[in-house]
C-alpha cells in the first residue's frame, strides 16, 4: 500500500493525516513533506497516525527529525495515535517520552490529554 499524505488546518495547527505504511521505502516522501511544511512556516504541526497500518524505525527517525526542526523554530509537533499496535513501537524505543502522543486530533490541537497523562491519572 502506498503512503497517502493530506493536510488540513485546525485552528492554529496544521494537521498532516497519514495513511498506509511508513517504512524505509515510503519514509523519504514523508520526510520531504514535513520539511516542506516547516519551510513554508508551519509552526504547530499535528501528525495524525490514525490510518497508519505499519510504522518502522525509519518512520520514527523522520518524526524525530521533524520534532527537532519544529522545536528549533519554537514550534511543536504533536502526534495522534489511537492504536495500541503503534503505541507499542513508541514505548519499546522510549520515544513515547520524546513525543506528546494524543488519542485524537481534537485533543492534539487543543492541548488536551496525552496517553501518558491518561496513564498517570
Amino acid at each position: 500500500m502506498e503512503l497517502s499524505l493530506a493536510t488540513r488546518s485546525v485552528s492554529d495547527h496544521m494537521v498532516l493525516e497519514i495513511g498506509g505504511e511508513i517504512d524505509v521505502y515510503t519514509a523519504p516522501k514523508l520526510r520531504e513533506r514535513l520539511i516542506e511544511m516547516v519551510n513554508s512556516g508551519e509552526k504547530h504541526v499535528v501528525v495524525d497516525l490514525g490510518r497508519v497500518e505499519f510504522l518502522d524505525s525509519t518512520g520514527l527517525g523522520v518524526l524525530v527529525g521533524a520534532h527537532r526542526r519544529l522545536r528549533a523554530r519554537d514550534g511543536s509537533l504533536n502526534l495522534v495515535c489511537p492504536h495500541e499496535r503503534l503505541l507499542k513501537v513508541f514505548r519499546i524505543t522510549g520515544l513515547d517520552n520524546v513525543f506528546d502522543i494524543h488519542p485524537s486530533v481534537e485533543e492534539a490541537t487543543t492541548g488536551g490529554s496525552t496517553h501518558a497523562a491518561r496513564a498517570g491519572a
Partner: protein
Amino acid sequence: MATVRMSFTPDPAYVRTVRMVAAAVARRAGVADELLDEVRLAIGEACTRAVAVHRRHELTDPIAVAMSDGGRFTVRVTDRGPAEAAGREPGQETADILAQVAAETGRPGVDEEVLTFGVGLALLTGLVSDLHVVAAADGIGTEVRMSWPIGRRSGH
C-alpha cells in the same frame, strides 16, 4: 522441517515484499496470530538494517533471508557488509542514542541516519527475545538471527 529462502537487491522497495512473505511463512509455520505483527516488524527492521549496511558500503550484492520452522520459526537475515555489528550486544549504543534524543531541545544532535539505526536495533531487541547478531557463517557479513515459538494454541 520446511524452509523458505529469498535474496533481494539492497533496495528499500523490496523490504515490504520480504515483510509480507515472512508474515505468510510465519503464519503457515504455526506462529500465533498475536505474534505476527511483531514478526513482521522485526523482520522488516532486520532487512532495513541490512539495506542500510549495503548502501553505506556501496554493495550491490543481494541480502539473504532464510526462514525455517524446525521447532521454532527461525529467520536469518544476512548482509555482506564488513562485520561491524557482529558480536556486539545490539542494545548497547541504542540506549545512549535514545537518551540523547530524549534530552534534546531542538539542537541538531544525533544524525538522523544514526538515530534510525539505533531505533531499529532498539525495536529488534525490544520485540525479539531470541535475537542474535553474529558474523555470517562464511565470514563475510553479519547475520541477524531471530526465532519465535510455534504453536497456535499456546496462547489460547
